């Protein structure tokens, strides 16, 4: 316990935990919609695209995180536009993802191969989070959470009943596009916590865990935020004690939580199916 307290006296640990918890909030909220809309592959594809942005930033000496956000948002919009051209859904993701990745690889080779900067984006960069990163994260987080808070019910309606939403005159196309942009921004933010390769896991896995709890939408959103925060904090602490990669540890803890919740949900389902059928009250 004393070790834990000492640990958080280090500035790098404070910054890492703060950044991690902030990002958990947005990952938890957005993740639930990503899972329900079945757009988990979108997160992964956008993460690969943002690799191109990071490489671009490093190659030309701009702030990689900012460039990655611009590239990921552009990539997300490109995917949507390709989908509207009646390209098969996964194919449009594949093409844009490949473009980002290929561009990134070429740029990396031009600037002299994988250097420390690039590796830090690919894997476990959270312990290297600087205060300037935290500022950027706080700013974007505020915007993302505000947009989600305002459009929560619209996203809910479009997710639950897309056809009905379209008929009632809701701007479904704009909402879809907005959702893609939000996902792109979140992917880049989450990249700072777990690295490009594990971004979509941080968005999707805590949400999937929360969905096991069989709550309403509001309850599921709250649970997803809580689960994501706990997993990030626990993974971070474990990684420091075990001297292991923080991004990987956070994701492993998240997956352990998912498996535990699935086992619990499975056990309770079996208990219900064995119990008397009349146990559920009906009005």
């Amino acid at each position, binding site marked *: 316990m004393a070790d834990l307290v000492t640990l958080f006296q280090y500035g790098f640990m404070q910054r890492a935990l703060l950044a991690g918890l902030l990002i958990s909030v947005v990952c938890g909220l957005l993740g639930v919609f990503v899972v329900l809309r079945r757009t988990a592959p979108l997160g992964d594809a956008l993460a690969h695209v943002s690799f191109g942005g990071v490489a671009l930033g490093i190659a030309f000496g701009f702030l990689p995180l900012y460039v990655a956000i611009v590239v990921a948002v552009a990539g997300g919009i490109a995917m949507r536009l390709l989908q509207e051209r009646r390209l098969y859904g996964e194919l449009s993701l594949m093409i844009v993802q490949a473009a980002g990745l290929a561009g990134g690889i070429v740029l990396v080779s031009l600037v002299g191969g994988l250097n420390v900067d690039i590796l830090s984006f690919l894997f476990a960069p959270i312990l290297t989070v600087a205060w300037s990163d935290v500022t950027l994260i706080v700013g974007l987080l505020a915007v993302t959470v505000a947009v989600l808070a305002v*459009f929560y019910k619209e996203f*809910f*309606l479009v997710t*639950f009943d897309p056809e*009905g939403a379209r*008929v009632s005159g809701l701007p479904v196309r704009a909402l879809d596009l907005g959702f893609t942009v939000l996902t792109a921004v979140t992917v880049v933010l989450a990249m700072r916590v777990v690295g490009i390769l594990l971004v979509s896991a941080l968005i999707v896995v805590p949400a999937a865990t929360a969905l096991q709890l*069989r709550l*309403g*939408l509001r309850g599921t959103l709250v649970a997803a935020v809580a689960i994501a925060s706990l997993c990030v904090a626990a993974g971070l602490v474990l990684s420091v004690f075990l001297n292991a990669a923080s991004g990987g540890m956070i994701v492993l803890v998240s997956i352990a939580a998912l498996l535990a919740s699935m086992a619990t949900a499975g056990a309770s389902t079996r208990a219900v199916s064995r119990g008397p059928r009349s146990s559920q009250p009906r*009005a």
Partner: protein
Amino acid sequence: MSAASVAASHPPNEAAAVVRVRGVSLEREGQEVLRDVDLSVERGEILGIVGPNGGGKTSLLRLVLGLERPTAGEVELFGVPVSRFREWRRIAYIPQHATAFDPHFPAIVREVVLLGRVARRGALHWLGAEDREAARRAIELCGLSGLEGRRVGALSGGEKQRVFIAKAIAARPDLLVMDEPTAGVDPESERRFYDLLSELRAELGLTVILVSHDLGVVSARVDRVACLNRTLVYHGPAAALEDKDLLGRLYGAGRVVIAHGADEPPVHGH
């Protein structure tokens, strides 16, 4: 409820038919789906659209809802051509298989019914006490009191269907459009469904269009029927459907019935 008392609850400039379909034809990839259909739906009326699978019922709904454009002819909603119609919040639509959504979807009855208010208000509006009250009223009208906190996926087929109707009427629409609302619902729930429709019409002055392949039940429970088999075979009082010749013309031999796998469900016996 008489047509006059229903009309009185709306402004006088709203005298036009709720839906008017004039000479509408639809072709998809060279295939004729609908030919020269004329149809009207009057205020406060419950219209049943029946016909064989592949007869164009769902397609006609999609034209009425502006989800598709006709190849020829025109559709008017509340006296306005559908291409220029903007008051979509006056229309609630319950698609086919609406109740067959992912049973694990994390939504409780209260949340889903409130979504009807989102449809009503449009994007970028906060929901307030008035909206919660409208949702509560819709839940009550649809006989769902006591189930507000239950997950929708855990309800029975008939209950789920009433949740969707509550969501639709929470938006206080003037027109409710339903595609195969009683598919996969047991006979008792089906009976309750039609009772509920009559109550909602009396209570809210609702106009209803419903599509069904089940001609027998529909003709007993709606005001007028439109029989569709690519062309409009019959459009008039439901009582006339006891006429066996008409049924023969609608479903009889010599008519080509094309199956739209994705468009229409297989016929279920009742």
